[in-house]
């Protein structure tokens, strides 16, 4: 049994990273919005989905015109990030801001709104894609440049160009975000608003604007993740965001919600866990419990961690606001 596990392990870890980086990028959107508004932005999984759909459409329409696959991907990433970010801003503007202005103290209200927005976006995209192409399943067009593959470590890892691209882009985005949050004025303002919204406004910061920017940044990251997800796993639907979204949120909680490095770590950990158990559960349980339990394991681990360490892996203990 151990032999069986070890033979595949390099491959499983590699694939775990691919999935983990997707989760990490999506998790950042959850964690940033949560940091600023203490809101679980359920609709973020649909922002991710919109990014993926934009990616598919860019490939569909531009592949015949753009010869270079990497350039094409760059265009898809830019457009996917932009449109997803824009959607996130619109969602904030028209669904969440009115609630904030009314000064609702009930925390269920924005959460339920977020669920509603999520449903609306799913079906709107479905409607649009249905009328546009009469397709429910959207398939990412295959582009030669990105499809190459290599064997690493004497065949222990089989890796595709697009997997490397995915990881490379993710790392760049994560570094960029870290820089932005820690080293720029906007970043300091975002952190200030997250820590104390009303005092931040006494500094001359317009909280609405910063919140909008936060949604833009988180949304763009989610959109980029969506494009990369579609590229990697090739087929998407308007409902594709739900599970990755749920897992990315889990990742954010795992890492300590509101905590940016935590979200990255949580994403990577969850990606590894999911791939590990997805691959090995049948071996580990002698075929009694199969791949289908991989999400169950992921959730149970989440609960376990929340019980043992409620603030998450990297989170700090925050006193409840009274």
């Amino acid at each position, binding site marked *: 049994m151990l032999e069986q596990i070890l033979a595949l392990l390099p491959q499983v870890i590699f694939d775990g990273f691919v999935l983990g980086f997707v989760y990490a990028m999506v998790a950042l959107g959850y964690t940033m919005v949560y940091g600023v508004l203490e809101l679980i932005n359920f609709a973020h999984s649909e922002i991710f989905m919109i990014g993926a759909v934009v990616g598919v459409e860019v490939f569909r329409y531009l592949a015949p015109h753009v010869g270079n696959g990497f350039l094409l991907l760059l265009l898809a990433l830019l457009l996917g990030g932009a449109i997803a970010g824009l959607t996130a801003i619109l969602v904030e503007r028209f669904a969440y801001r009115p609630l904030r202005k009314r000064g609702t103290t009930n925390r269920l209200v924005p959460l339920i709104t977020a669920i509603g927005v999520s449903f609306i976006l799913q079906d709107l995209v479905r409607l649009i894609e249905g009328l546009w192409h009469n397709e429910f399943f959207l398939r990412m067009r295959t582009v030669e440049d990105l499809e190459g593959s290599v064997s690493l470590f004497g065949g222990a890892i089989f890796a595709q160009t697009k997997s490397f691209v995915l990881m490379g882009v993710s790392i760049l985005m994560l570094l960029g975000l870290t820089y932005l949050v820690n080293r720029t*004025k906007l970043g*300091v*303002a975002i*952190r*200030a608003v997250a*820590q*104390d919204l*009303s*005092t*931040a*406004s*006494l*500094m*001359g*910061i*317009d*909280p609405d604007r910063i919140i909008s920017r936060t949604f833009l940044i988180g949304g763009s990251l989610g959109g980029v993740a969506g494009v990369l997800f579609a590229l990697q796993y090739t087929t998407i639907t308007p409902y594709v965001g739900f599970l990755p979204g749920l897992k990315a949120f889990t990742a954010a909680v795992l890492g300590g919600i509101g905590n940016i490095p935590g979200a990255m770590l949580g994403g990577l950990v969850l990606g590894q866990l999911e791939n590990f158990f997805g691959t090995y559960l049948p071996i580990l349980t002698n075929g009694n419990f199969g791949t289908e339990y991989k999400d169950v394991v992921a959730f149970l681990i989440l609960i376990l961690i929340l019980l043992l360490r409620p603030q998450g892996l990297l989170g*700090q203990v925050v006193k409840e606001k009274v």
Partner: protein
Amino acid sequence: MSLLELRGVHTYYGHIHALKGVSLKVEEGEIVTLIGSNGAGKSTTLRTISGLVKPRQGEVLFQGRPIHRLPAHQIVALGVGHVPEGRRIFPRLTVEENLEIGAYLETDRKVVQERKDQVFALFPRLYERRGQKGGTLSGGEQQMLAIGRALMQNPRILLMDEPSMGLAPVLVDFIFETIQKLNQEGKTILLVEQNARLALQIAHRGYVLATGEITLFGPARELAQNPEVQKAYLGEG
């Protein structure tokens, strides 16, 4: 024209009628203090001025211009600095970041650096602690940081809410000296204090607030002599 004027301001928190027609004036170059017991509406007055709560009735004029409909961040831009009650330092920003965020509206990096130098000159302790997270500072240091942060805006008027709260006597003296110093350098200050004795000592004029209404006002020295004030707020008589 007064620098700041409130005319018949009514403010509500939900159903609670917190300010019931407050009117007051602050002239350029003054220290004006607002004294009163807990829950009298002192903080609410400051919060109303800086736009954190909106008055339901009445108006707030800054340099003759109504500002009570503006959002807080725009009022700041006009030159109203607010040192909030309980300091409200950003706990996970460093001291330096806290100061820089104070100068959020200033785009010239050179000016920001100059002001930072001035603040550090005023509070050398902050310079020593500049890389530390705000949440790890002691109470006195946090108060310095809160004042320094407001100064970074280079405000025309500084609203200070209970700067002495929870501090050791030595530090209280230091803070009040600093306030006087700032005033001598030309800053106009509206000071809210529990410690009425000290406040009346350094202020030019004072207002007494009780359950949302101004009950007495006048030059600080006269107020300090007023038997009612002495009885209620100075613990004498």
